[in-house]
């Protein structure tokens, strides 16, 4: 222990200690980097295992020399507080840092340096790296599924229209603001449905009919997620209120609904919706497979939304209910103006969580033969001409899903900040 105490800095000599310490850490980093990138072992003069451990030991000593409770130097204090609190944490910091550095060259060369992107067939991919040609060739399929190439503009136009209509709320006149909820809950979904029906499905206005079985890829992910998201939220709200109702019938219906849907796996629900459900319907009644799937996911996720929203309702103090009641508000006025605005604000993180899960659950619709992004990948990787590129496909899909989900969670943070009020 003597030696370690000898390496302990105090406030007077911290300057010298931190310079020596950071120099030692730098040496350890240089050793690992040169080892990983240049394949040079700077410490080959040391015996076997000591040579491997050398950067770790040097780095630890360096961090130990820099560790002090309070130095007054902002950067140093930040470093000490977060990654250098004790020897164990310093060790973890170094191990993580070194693993990342060690893994970088391989992944870099596979993904970028040795990768292929030229050409338009499998033959172009001869290198040892990733074959991005595969993604390039299949890109349209991954985006639009089996939808005919010459009609892709219809999907693009429909999406642009739907997104533009979504922004209407921002430009609404002040005196129309009270219809905002009505617009987003009822009018907007109907318009969006009509746009998607007439543009993407076609069949009228001289547009050729494209059946939903041909839809696919990322655009289908968007369509399914979009409708499920906008319908499951109001439905969940109704069941959350229902579960807290004083009327036993409504209360028990809500409880049964929530417990039923939370208790069954989504995959069986989807399977039922496409295989069992049509058997119970009259012969001449036709409901599109895609519509059935959207309804199934909506009903399923609504149960989760309901429980999240109920959590928010329960966290409000009873005084809020008392105050609203004492002002003569009835059940609906009290909930619309006082309770829900506060409760929904509280559950934004939970709702964002549910929505992210929903988006990432959409690949499950593959079990009923609808191929959205991940589904198209599964089809593409079994194509005889393109065997063996599953890895590239899944990395591509992960990146796309990550971007979508990250955008959603960023948006939820924005909402939280926007509606934050002091209590």
């Amino acid at each position: 222990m003597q030696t370690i105490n000898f390496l302990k800095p105090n406030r007077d000599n911290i300057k010298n200690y931190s310079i020596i310490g950071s120099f030692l850490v730098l040496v350890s980093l240089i050793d690992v980097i040169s080892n990983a990138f240049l394949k040079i072992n700077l410490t080959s003069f040391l015996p076997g295992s000591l040579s491997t451990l050398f950067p770790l030991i040097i780095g630890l000593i360096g961090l130990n020399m820099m560790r002090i409770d309070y130095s007054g130097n902002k950067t140093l204090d930040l470093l000490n507080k977060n990654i250098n609190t004790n020897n164990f944490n310093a060790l973890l910091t170094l191990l993580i840092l070194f693993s990342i550095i060690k893994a970088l060259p391989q992944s870099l060369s596979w993904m970028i340096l040795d990768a292929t992107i030229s050409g338009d067939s499998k033959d172009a991919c001869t290198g040892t790296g990733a074959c991005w040609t595969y993604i390039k060739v299949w890109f349209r399929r991954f985006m639009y599924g089996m939808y005919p190439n010459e009609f892709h503009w219809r999907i693009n136009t429909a999406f642009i229209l739907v997104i533009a209509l979504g922004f209407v709320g921002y430009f609404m006149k002040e005196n129309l603001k009270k219809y905002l909820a009505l617009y987003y809950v009822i009018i907007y979904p109907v318009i969006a449905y009509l746009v998607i029906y007439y543009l993407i499905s076609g069949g009228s206005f001289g547009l050729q009919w494209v059946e939903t079985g041909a839809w696919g890829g990322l655009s289908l992910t968007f369509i399914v997620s979009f409708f499920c998201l906008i319908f499951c939220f109001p439905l969940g709200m109704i069941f959350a209120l229902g579960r807290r109702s004083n009327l036993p019938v409504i209360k028990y219906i809500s409880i049964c609904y929530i417990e039923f849907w939370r208790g069954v796996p989504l995959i069986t629900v989807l399977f039922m919706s496409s295989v069992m459900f049509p058997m119970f319907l009259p012969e001449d009644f036709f409901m599109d497979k895609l519509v059935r799937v959207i309804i199934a996911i909506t009903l399923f996720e609504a149960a989760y939304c309901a429980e999240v929203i109920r959590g928010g309702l329960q966290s409000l103090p009873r005084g809020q209910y008392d105050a609203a009641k004492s002002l003569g508000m009835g059940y609906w006025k009290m909930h619309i103006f006082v309770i829900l605005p506060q409760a929904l604000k509280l559950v934004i993180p939970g709702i964002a969580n549910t929505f992210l899960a929903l988006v990432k659950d959409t690949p499950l619709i593959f079990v009923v033969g609808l191929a959205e992004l991940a589904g198209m990948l599964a089809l593409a990787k079994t194509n005889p001409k393109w065997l063996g590129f599953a890895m590239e496909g899944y990395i591509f899909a992960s990146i796309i899903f990550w971007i979508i989900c990250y955008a959603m969670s960023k948006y939820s943070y924005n909402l939280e900040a926007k509606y934050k009020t002091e209590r």
Partner: protein
Amino acid sequence: MSDPIIKIQNMNKWFGDFQVLKNINLEVEANKKIVVCGPSGSGKSTLIRCINRLEEHQEGDIIVDGNELSEKTKDIEKIRAEVGMVFQQFNLFPHLSILDNCTLAPIWVKKMPKKEAQELALDQLKKVQIDDQANKFPGQLSGGQQQRCAIARALCMQPKIMLFDEPTSALDPEMIKEVLDAMVSLAKGGMTMIVVTHEMGFAKEVADEVIFMDEGMIIEKAETKEFFASPKSDRTKLFLSQIL
């Protein structure tokens, strides 16, 4: 003697097995100010919460402004709109500005035009001297200001009766006075008030009658002067000796 605006007869109330209110009889005439005092847990708050049916009573009658409160009462909202209430914890709506707190109920319950409601609200806020805070949010105000806003919010419904449930108990000593001042000027304006409070100074200044409650019963009910000068029951004497 005019007809009482609030009439409670043989009222009993239980929370589960526990009887909180026992055989309450009370008549309040219009424009009278009643102060209810007593030790904590004696049922004072429950009593006034029964008057606008935030709590339901199990036995007896409560008649407010000619309407009997019972399970059959259909438009309880209409009665509540005429009975303003101020709470110990203020219970302002934290997501709305002070002005919106005051205009919400007049606009949506009384169907008052927005402009008229805002004028009324500013007028009421001026009376409690926080009209300069109208655009702030409740969280930005001090406790005393919040409670005065709560009084203004209740007054915006232009109630016939005002109920106060320990309005100063959650406040710093310095802020109690500003709230009491607002209540005194309201009392002098002729409002019918039932106030649960421990502020005996307030009781002496404005109350017509003082009620002392203990263990769910009304122990003593007397005119203010008489109540403080010559309390009849020993329990009241003990209580007064402890808090005066």
